[in-house]
């Protein structure tokens, strides 16, 4: 197009400045976080299964808990991590937590502290070593996990606070992946879920529950259909659905309103880009 040619409306629609697109998306994402927009949230079968499995764990059972959250994925899945701990503590289920990402142990500790605070008096009765144990960072990715699930005490003799595992009541009779009632895998986008499926579910048949970021969600639906995992949470939307089932509208619920408006912006931009493109093609054919 020559400089002298006047731009048509269609040209303008097809050539919106990148900064304007960013601006629209920013407003769509930030607006609902400042001004609450309550939207009905239908609960999908994936999350229903996840919630129902957690509710079916008997009191006193010990679950394994892999936490892989990082600073990048915590905004999506942090609210759900806290929610799962609330659910476990409320039901008097014990948990043994490990991380295969070096920066994740802090997120597990933060989520536990938040859960205990939310539970108030019930939270105050919970004791480290009795109700939960933090093993800390385990190096070696899948090999590290294989070693840990083959014999926890062979890999580490102390928890991350330096306490001997044999002195912690929650660790009594727990030494392999077979000893857990279930394993909850809060992976973020670490891509580590198949490690758990191969080394825990595949070897011992221990049921698994999985929470991943929304971009990883489609990858693991197939494992749910095969029965290798029993419930699946995908990103902030999944976490919000879990909040709905727990009847506690929190951060994830607020995020879904932002996601909804953000989705509208993405769809609108797709539409505008294609209207302009089709018009341009029509003109070229003429």
């Amino acid at each position, binding site marked *: 197009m020559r400089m002298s040619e006047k731009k048509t409306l269609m040209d303008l629609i097809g050539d919106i400045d990148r900064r304007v697109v960013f601006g629209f998306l920013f407003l769509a994402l930030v607006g609902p976080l400042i001004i609450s927009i309550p939207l009905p949230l239908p609960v999908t079968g994936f999350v229903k299964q996840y919630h129902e499995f957690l509710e079916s764990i008997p009191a006193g059972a010990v679950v394994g808990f892999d936490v892989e959250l990082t600073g990048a*994925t915590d*905004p999506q899945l942090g609210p759900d991590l806290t929610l799962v701990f609330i659910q476990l503590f409320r039901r008097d289920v014990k948990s043994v937590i490990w991380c295969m990402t070096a920066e994740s142990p802090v997120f597990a500790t933060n989520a536990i502290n938040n859960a205990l605070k939310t539970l108030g008096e019930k939270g105050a009765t919970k004791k480290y070593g009795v109700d939960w144990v933090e093993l800390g960072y385990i190096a070696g990715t899948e*090999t590290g996990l294989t070693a840990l699930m083959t014999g926890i005490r062979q890999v580490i003799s102390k928890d991350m606070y330096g306490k001997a595992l044999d002195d912690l009541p929650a660790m009594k009779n727990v030494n392999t992946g077979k000893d857990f009632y279930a394993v909850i895998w809060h992976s973020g986008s670490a891509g580590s879920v198949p490690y758990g499926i191969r080394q825990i579910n595949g070897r011992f048949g221990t049921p698994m529950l999985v929470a991943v970021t929304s971009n990883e969600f489609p990858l693991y639906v197939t494992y749910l259909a095969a029965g290798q995992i029993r419930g699946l949470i995908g990103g902030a*939307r999944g976490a919000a659905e879990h909040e709905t089932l727990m009847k506690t509208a929190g951060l994830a619920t607020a995020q879904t309103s932002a996601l909804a408006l953000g989705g509208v*912006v993405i769809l609108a931009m797709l539409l505008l880009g294609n209207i302009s493109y089709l018009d341009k093609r029509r003109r070229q054919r003429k």
Partner: protein
Amino acid sequence: MSENVYKNQLPFAVLFIVGVFVILTYFFQVPPEISAMAGDLTTFGAVIASFGILLGTLALVRYHVVLMYRKKKNWQFSILTMIVLAATLLTGLIGSSRGKDFLWIYNYLNIPINATLYSTTAFFITSAAYRTFKLRTFDSAIMMTVAVLMILSWMTLGNLAFPATIEIGDWILKIPNSAGFRGMTIGVALGLLGIGTRAILGRYREVLTA
């Protein structure tokens, strides 16, 4: 001769022994002695990986020291990296990894920076979708239709306006998505099995030079 033993024969012998033990215990019921031996070998793997963190830190320090010493392009950022590394390491070592100072660095620097960088992808994806995701061919039209349906099924406003998108989204995830992903996973697994067998038998020499 001795070089060949150290560089080829010995590593492949170790690879063969470790590979066979671990595979045997995964796929077959083996006597407890063999199972214990395989367990020890796997534990070695976890221990070696722990040393890898130390090695990684040393390699990072060495890399940045060289950059600073030679005053290569943007060497000033290396000073910043070293200061942050030293500060994080010292606060962790002195006050423990659950100490106030260490957690301050973590909660008020690391997490917001990470979250910010990750969030910016939403902006670039939107801009890229606007500029490049066009109805050029029949294939791209199918892809666009699926993408729009998935976005609608994923966002609450979409569910509200078009309730059927929930069911459609579920169906896309469970049927076509699962079928494609399963095929891909099985293909990758078979490929890995082939490469693994070749590596254990010493037929895939690149495994030691990768």
